[in-house]
């Protein structure tokens, strides 16, 4: 019998410990496939965040480093500047990138650092138990906003792509979502562009991927997919926020 589907060589054999319905697995697979398709696995150094995907250093089948919470873009800078022949990606959640590491991501983008950043926005802190994230929607419940995020006391969410698009530095910024097969394919296209930009020495690329956290959201996986496609996409519009290749033409 012909094998038509299997684990891509860009992922290790280790069993991933994500919850049912979690979007991390989908994005991991896309990256794992791209490492092979683009033939970069053997020259890639990946950066795992702090959060649920801290174990990404176990899952991606390439050299990996696990730095302090939020500091991925700074570590990526040190790696890329000393090993420009390597492909360096930083995989970060919303607590990691949009709370703790706000300064690091802004400055890496402003420098147009030649790295690839994958930003998973699921509007919640998963690993620590469903606390409010910088991206938690107004009115959305979490374990530190039990009656729903009160914008008068807890402020507004941060839209990372829009914020970074205010800078001249970044080369490529896009927001995608992994709720339907069509959107997963769109996400893969965006991630491929983000890696290709680095291969072509174009500079800083970030792909924000809206994703699910059924456990943190208190929903079933089916409910979560639906809520992702509706509420999340409504607050965080999809699309390309910066593509300097268009300006170059």
């Amino acid at each position, binding site marked *: 019998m012909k094998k038509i589907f299997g684990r891509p060589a860009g992922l290790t054999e280790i069993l991933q410990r994500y919850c049912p319905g979690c979007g991390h697995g989908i994005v991991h697979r896309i990256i794992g496939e791209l490492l092979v398709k683009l033939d970069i696995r053997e020259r890639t150094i990946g950066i795992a965040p702090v959060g649920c995907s801290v174990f990404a250093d176990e899952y991606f089948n390439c050299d990996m480093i696990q730095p302090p919470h939020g500091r991925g873009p700074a570590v990526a800078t*040190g790696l890329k500047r000393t090993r420009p022949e390597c492909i360096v990606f930083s995989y970060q959640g919303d607590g990691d990138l949009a709370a703790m590491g706000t300064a690091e991501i802004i400055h890496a983008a402003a420098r147009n650092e030649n790295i690839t950043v994958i930003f998973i926005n699921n509007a919640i802190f998963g690993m620590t138990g469903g606390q409010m994230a910088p991206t938690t929607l107004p009115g959305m419940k979490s374990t530190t906003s039990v009656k729903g995020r009160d914008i008068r006391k807890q402020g507004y969410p941060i839209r990372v792509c829009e914020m970074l698009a205010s800078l001249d530095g970044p080369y490529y910024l896009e927001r995608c979502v992994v709720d339907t097969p069509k959107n997963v394919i769109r996400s893969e296209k965006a991630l491929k562009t983000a890696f290709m930009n680095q291969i072509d020495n174009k500079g800083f690329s970030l792909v924000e991927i809206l994703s699910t956290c059924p456990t943190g959201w208190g929903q079933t996986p089916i409910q979560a997919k639906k809520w992702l496609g509706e509420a999340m996409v409504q607050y965080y519009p999809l699309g390309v926020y910066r593509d300097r290749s268009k300006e170059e033409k």
Partner: protein
Amino acid sequence: MAEKKLMYGNHAIVEGVLAAGCRFFAGYPITPQNEIPELMSIRMNEIGGVFVQTGSEVAAINMLFGAAAAGKRAMTSSSSPGISLMQEGISYIAGADIPVLVVNVVRGGPGLGNIAPAQSDYYQATRGGGHGDYFTITLAPNSAQDLYEFPRLAFELAEKYRNPALILADGLLGQMMEPVELSDELVDPNSLAENEWALSGCKGRERRIVRSYDLRPGKLEEWNLRRIEKYEKIKKNEQRFEATDCDDADLVIVAYGTCSRVSDAAVKMARDKGFKVGLLRPITLWPFPWDVFADMSKRIENFLVVEMSCGQMIDDVKLATECRSKIHFHGRPGGGVPTPPEVYKEIEKVLGGAQ
């Protein structure tokens, strides 16, 4: 003999770092060490190295983590408040057993403090500084020549033991000018061996992971215990100090960095007046030169610890001598710098009027 050049201490650090084959610097401006990033930005550009002015000291230390994890010699410099910001990163780097070089040109604290020379970061430097069970190899220069030579020593020790190394200078050493004898043996960065742990892409080998965590039951404890073994080795092999006129001494001054220079002058004043006084200058602050203290405390009745702080190294002197000797203290905190006559007076206080 190689050429002697009149250099600022901060500039001597830069040339020493480059002579050691380091081609990566990341840092953030802060007085009194600004001459380091300024000159580094020019020199790295000249020789094709990397200079990054960062958004913060937090970013700087993490860029070092990346560059050093890639197997390259990497350094940053800062002064006290900036070094406090780096503690998170230093803890992770120590936890991942990665060699880096951090230079602290210490200024008055706590808080914003002032920009005058100080030694009040001794505890932070010698007790790890961040969270977790770890130590950083800490060298204390006392001249521009040391500032030029210690970066190389620091990198060698850091790499030998896979551990972060710190050079603890102060504002006076950084701002002072002295002749420096430049080495004509420069380390070629390309001649440095590839490390078996460095990240470079997994072509033709098993993939590598650099990290400081292990959540498996008991595993982190094992890892820490292995690190403690490393520390014991460092303690055994790397204690460095300089002892002057200690053999017949009734009193030995203990001082490092700037205070060792001031105390050296005070010792000369005291010897001229017939006092038997010596100077013991720790060069490694961690590992502290415990052995020489343990030995000296059997015959030296008095130690006078001189520090530009409220008294931090004095704890190590008490521990190392097991309080067999009398331990006296003279300290100038908050940017105060002791003068030779001032230290001489303290000697008189202990040993009585003129001999």
